[in-house]
């Protein structure tokens, strides 16, 4: 991959050490004029991006103004979710539009899934080395 950046996996539970490392990507989300630095879990097992409720509010999004409801599966099925498009900036790469399922679940993680994170970036995982590389599509 040309123009790529390499990141280390993040250890999420010190008591489990390397067993608990996951691919979290630092990125900046921008909605209208509000920006937020966050870490999103790269989840090739998710068909959609998921934005937790509080994060959407911190970006200045108004729930009532989002008019596209969408059905999520799994643990998030019991929470209402609506589509929200925000700008995302990863490292020095050009900003891209990411469409999120903005869920009312306050405890959901920020998930970067197929629609449309993995349609916007190419990612190569080196799990044995606890690293991944990313580049724009």
């Amino acid at each position, binding site marked *: 991959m040309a123009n790529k950046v390499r990141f280390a996996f993040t250890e999420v539970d010190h008591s489990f050490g390397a067993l608990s490392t996951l691919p979290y990507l630092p990125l900046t989300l921008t909605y209208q004029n509000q920006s937020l630095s966050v870490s999103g879990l790269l*989840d090739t*097992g*998710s*068909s*959609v*991006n*998921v934005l937790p409720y509080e994060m959407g509010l911190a970006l200045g999004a108004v729930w009532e103004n989002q008019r*596209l*409801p*969408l*059905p*999520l*599966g*799994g643990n*998030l*099925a*019991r*929470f*209402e*979710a*609506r*589509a*929200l*498009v925000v700008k995302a900036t990863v490292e020095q790469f050009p900003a891209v*539009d990411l*469409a*999120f*399922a903005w869920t009312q679940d306050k405890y959901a993680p920020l*998930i970067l*899934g*197929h*629609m*449309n994170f993995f349609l916007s970036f190419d990612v190569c995982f080196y799990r044995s080395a606890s690293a991944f590389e990313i580049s724009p599509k």
Partner: protein
Amino acid sequence: MLTTTQFAPMLRQLSHSDKLLLLNLLVAELLRESGIVPLSIQDDLPRQGLHDSFEAAAILAQALKENQELIHG
């Protein structure tokens, strides 16, 4: 279109079972409009997870398209 004041007396004349069915209809309508999967069928969809939320993915694609049209006209 009838107002609530106009049709409330008619609703009161419904049978007990029709009132229950009407409630069920309204709840189903509200859940569907909100995109929430009813609790009654969540157990019937054990395999549905984020990995196959394809309908949600299609709606996100639509949101992206509308956003692009808004920006670029």
